[in-house]
């Protein structure tokens, strides 16, 4: 593929300063998302999925600092933009859906108005037009009885409904890039399926690029084109979704798959992953942050991590891949 990707993250490192020392949360992370493509960031808690998204959106906690890297989006480096420039991009070109819709929505503003606000601020809509456009958005995310629901406050709606409102807000201005951070955690599987189908359709219709953050590998496999696996602030593997499932090459990806309840016949066949994440404050972090948990460790693992291309669009950061 030679087209310019919608987002190209390269060499991104983030540190958090804490009283207990500097935590190297992300180290030299790089990946791309093409137009119309959905890329999953998967990994366990603490792997750096959300921090990656927050860094790209420019909404890192003040304690966090980007120490290197670029995030090229529409010809500009998002990491170098001023807060005012970024505020223009966010909401219009860049959108995010947060994990918990109830806390992300304004509890004392009617949901229709919250959508209208975005349309006026970023979508060039006029105040008199905005309510009607907001109802159109509600229709688009398949909220039944949209005229009435626009007049509701978030507490009057179910979790699935609130998540649809969040999606309506995020998609109101037809963004070029959507970041969805665990958008269906806490929702019923039936609702999850409907929400994921919806994001997929809208991405397909408008060519929107999507970063989908999840810890559910099966969900990532079903709805995403490519999967990026993170572990302790490193990208350890990135591959087309089907390939990752049938032929994971990084030992951590393979373990993660083996720990996921899916088609396995019995509990006994599920394997746990020994060890835990290394302490990211250590000054002597090993080159490979998985090596202390890895059964395939060899002497080479002390050398700086490689980026091996083991197939089409399939990269693995391992000296001794499967």
């Amino acid at each position, binding site marked *: 593929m030679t087209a310019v990707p919608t987002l190209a993250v390269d060499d991104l490192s983030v540190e958090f300063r804490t009283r207990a020392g500097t935590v190297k949360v992300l180290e030299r992370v790089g990946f791309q998302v093409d137009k119309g493509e959905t890329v999953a960031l998967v990994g366990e808690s603490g792997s750096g999925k959300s921090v990656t998204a927050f860094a790209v959106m420019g909404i890192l906690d003040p304690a966090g600092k980007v120490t290197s890297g670029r995030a090229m989006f529409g010809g500009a480096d998002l990491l170098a933009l001023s807060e005012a420039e970024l505020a223009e991009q966010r909401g219009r070109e860049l959108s995010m859906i947060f994990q918990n819709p109830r806390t992300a929505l304004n509890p004392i503003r009617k949901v229709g108005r919250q959508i209208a606000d975005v349309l006026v601020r970023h979508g060039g809509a006029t105040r008199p037009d905005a309510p009607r456009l907001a109802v159109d958005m509600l229709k688009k995310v398949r909220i039944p009885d949209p005229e009435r629901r626009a007049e509701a406050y978030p507490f009057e709606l179910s979790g699935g409904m609130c998540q649809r409102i969040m999606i309506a807000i995020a998609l109101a201005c037809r963004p070029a890039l959507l970041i969805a951070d665990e958008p269906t955690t806490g929702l019923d*599987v039936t609702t*999850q*399926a409907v929400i994921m189908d919806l994001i997929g359709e809208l991405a397909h219709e408008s060519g929107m690029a999507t970063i989908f953050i999840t*810890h559910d*590998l099966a969900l990532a496999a*079903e709805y995403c084109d490519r999967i990026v696996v993170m572990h302790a602030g490193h990208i350890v593997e990135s591959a087309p979704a089907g390939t990752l499932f049938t032929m994971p090459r990084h030992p951590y990806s393979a373990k993660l798959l083996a720990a996921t309840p899916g*088609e396995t016949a019995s*509990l006994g066949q599920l394997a*746990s992953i020994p060890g835990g994440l290394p302490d990211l404050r250590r000054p002597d972090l090993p080159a490979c942050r998985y090596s202390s948990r890895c059964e395939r460790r060899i002497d080479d693992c002390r050398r700086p991590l490689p980026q091996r291309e083991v197939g089409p669009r399939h990269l693995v950061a391992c000296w001794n891949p499967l």
Partner: protein
Amino acid sequence: MSALLDIAELAKRFEVAGRRLLHAVDEVTFTIGRGETVGLVGESGCGKSTLVRLINRLLDPTSGSIRLGGAELADLRARSFAANPHRARIQMVFQDAGDSLNPRYTAADAIADPIRRLKHLKGAALRQRVEALADMTGLPRELLSRFPHQLSGGQKARVGIARAIAVEPELLILDEPTAALDVSVQVLILKLLQQLKGKLGMSYLFVSHDLNVVRLLCDRVLVMYLGKIVEQGPAAEIFGDPRHPYTRALISAIPQADPARRIGRLRLGGEPRSPIDPDPSVCRFYGRCPRGEPRCAAEMPLLRSAGPARQVACHFA
């Protein structure tokens, strides 16, 4: 298998504005055998939590019976149940161990509390019991003096399990015990639960959204929809050959990594019917059901036998 828990025509109706009744749990009947793991699935708002709170005797039922090993519990008031000798027989592991542990109790205090209240152990005997429970649940003893915020998610889950089994319950209710955990930790906790069940001879009522976990852990599955059980049967049969359209939709919503398994999937449109004063002659699933024939709006389907140990509430299943 003799039944440990025998629930018959259990109902809970809440009065809402204007003297109308919300049917949270509607005439539910089922049993749990000794040593059996029964899964309870259904979407939020279907009455799972109310049912669990009724069985756990935190709520008083409107009608029906809850028999535990022959003793009728439905007549006992929820308010005084905490002091009842039956209290120790049903225990619960809550959804988010982080939220359900007292932040001012150490792990040892949290585990000791139910033993002190219900088994009246003190001093050295109490400490020994707490340490034995920590060993049993794989919680390192040196962590017993820590507070919840100093423990990881997996460790908190272990504390939650240790304090629930501390009083040797016969029935353990597990409400999404691994929902907040990473997969690598989830595996360990599920295996721990499986192992404890065999060792202590408990029965489990396992409430979960994660159907893949239910499939691995449960012998039998109850599917609830708007206060009613719409299908029940052995886990392998429910997953292999779901009969009720709602069960089918539920199972086809499980994310599939393998594209070949994504064929012929069922998606639900529409909105759930209101649980407030529902029409007794209309199927609760009518309006969302892909089948939905005139008969469904004229006659409520009853739970009927569909093979040995299998029941389904649909005119067409």
